[in-house]
């Protein structure tokens, strides 16, 4: 194996180890309420970063992301609740065991959920990404609703009641934060690495000027569909994690309001900033909780807060910049320098 590849794998393993340790620590020491909010923030941030690939980076205004989130959640849950027992039943005749163990089962559910969402993304994206701007927005909005209505009417997955009694595979071994933040890190890392390559620049070029990008040899349709499929896959994975953490899913969890919320996060993040999307994911999930003491008025205040944020920072939290260690280092330097400067002035 090439040395760089070994280095990458070791880095990933090291990161995973740290994250797992942190996850166990958090799950054992954090109050349940804060823990639940944290997990929700993580899932929201994953959704935001995955949509950022589509909306922020390739500039395709999609507002049906909850549809892919739903496909992932339902397919993942269908595996653990419906298909796995049937498979186990059939396999028992052949005296072959069905996959055991929570982690293995969760991984299978993740693969199923992500692939199903990815394939749905391909089916929806391939024809519709030829549309531009408002037309694409309307189409993706419609797609999200179609998925919700289908789920509402399919009795096999519980119809309006939804699927319940999903095993809490995500929480097994106190690893919930590991899975949620692991997938968040994965999609963020993917975005970051891609944006550092010349291929990533060709994705940005599609957002900047489609005609010029095409004239420079960028196959814009291919770029858009690829971004759409990758974004959908991570939304699907987030859905699987949601289903196996909160144990119950129903069509109304994946409504249009969720799609709009994810889109709001991406817009609030700034154009194409993945770290901004994480920040927005956390802020927009935690804010309604912070305002909980306002009782009935909390969503009103929440909306007002959003309007104020957009008025004061129309370019989003981070504009097109990314947060990194460099940003913190610069901030630290500035903080240390400023008292010295004021000292000289005296």
């Amino acid at each position, binding site marked *: 194996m090439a040395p760089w590849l070994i280095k990458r794998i070791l880095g990933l393993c090291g990161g995973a180890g740290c994250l797992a340790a942190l996850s166990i620590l958090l799950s054992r020491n954090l109050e349940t309420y804060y823990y639940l909010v944290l997990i929700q923030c993580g899932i929201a941030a994953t959704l935001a970063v995955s949509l950022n690939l589509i909306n922020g980076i390739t500039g395709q205004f999609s507002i049906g992301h909850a549809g892919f989130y739903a496909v992932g959640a339902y397919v993942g849950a269908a595996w653990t609740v419906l298909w796995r027992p049937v498979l186990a039943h059939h396999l028992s005749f052949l005296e072959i065991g069905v996959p055991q163990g929570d982690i293995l089962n969760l991984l299978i559910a993740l693969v199923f959920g992500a692939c199903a969402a990815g394939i749905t993304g391909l089916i929806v994206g391939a024809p519709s990404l030829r549309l531009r701007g408002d037309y694409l927005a309307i189409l993706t909005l419609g797609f999200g609703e179609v998925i919700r209505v289908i789920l509402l009417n399919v009795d096999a997955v519980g119809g309006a009641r939804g699927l319940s009694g999903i095993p809490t595979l995500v929480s097994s071994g106190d690893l919930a934060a590991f899975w949620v933040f692991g997938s968040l890190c994965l999609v963020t890392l993917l975005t970051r*690495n891609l944006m550092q*390559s010349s*291929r990533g620049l060709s994705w940005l070029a599609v957002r*900047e000027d489609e005609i010029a990008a095409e004239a*420079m040899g960028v196959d814009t349709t291919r770029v858009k569909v690829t971004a759409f499929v990758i974004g959908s896959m991570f939304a699907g994975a987030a859905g699987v994690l949601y289903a196996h953490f909160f144990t119950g899913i129903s069509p109304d969890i994946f409504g249009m309001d969720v799609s709009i919320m994810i889109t709001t996060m991406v817009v609030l993040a700034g154009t194409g900033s993945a770290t901004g999307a994480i920040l927005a994911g956390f802020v927009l999930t935690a804010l309604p909780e912070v305002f909980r003491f306002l009782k009935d008025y909390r969503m009103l205040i929440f909306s007002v807060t959003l309007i104020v944020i957009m008025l004061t920072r129309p370019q989003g939290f981070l504009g097109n910049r990314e947060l990194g260690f460099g940003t913190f280092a610069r901030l630290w330097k500035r903080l240390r320098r400023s008292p010295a400067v004021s000292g000289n002035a005296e």
Partner: protein
Amino acid sequence: MEAPETFTSGIGQCRVSDLLVVDRVSRFFGGLAAVAGVSLHVDKGELVGLIGPNGAGKTTVFNLLTGVYAPNEGDISFMGRRLNGMRPSRVAASGIARTFQNIRLFPSLTVLQNVMVGAHIRARTGLMAAIAQSLGQRSEDARLRGECLSILERLDLDGLADEQSTSLPYGQQRRLEIARALATSPRLLLLDEPAAGMNPQEKADLMVLIQRLREDYDLTILLIEHDMRLVMGICERIYVLDYGQIIAEGNPEEISTNPEVIAAYLGTEVV
């Protein structure tokens, strides 16, 4: 054995020296024939001008050549390959690069990044390599970045590599568009009014630049231009387009004395 003088391409007999052959191409928009039966050819290494009054269909010809529009009639062949119906990215990959009449840079990207998008066409490593940041991908990117910087240097833009592209003054933006087109390593460069909006000094510099680039990069150039001094000064052969049709072809002297051309530009006297 001597190399054959002619070969059979998608559109019949072509000369080996022909890089681009446009054969009776038409394009209609509704009932309007924007381009009606245009035939032209560009030989390897030539510098050809395409002129004509406003609305004559010059940019439509460029859009047909680069695949933005598919021709309704006729054939376009480039290096013996048919281009009809090919999508613009494929046309670019086959060796035709262009600049735009109304500058179309990637606004929020830096100068270097704009050129890197052009160079991306030559990248061999795939999406997975980019995501994993493989060694091959990083060394390839480093090589492409070096090539892009050297292109910027040729165009006197090297000090501005990290500037945002739209913060440059107009003339430099035009040159950046040329740099971006060159990064695709084209055989044929299409320049759509490269001197538009430039002052006389910038125009003079541009003339020198175009000729230098042509030699340095072994280019064939087809350019649309309204500035007659520039066209007459550097083009070896000129086509004149009026109402979607070629009304004259020849060297600068022939064109400047052609009565039909003068009539198209100045109008004929109504008796």
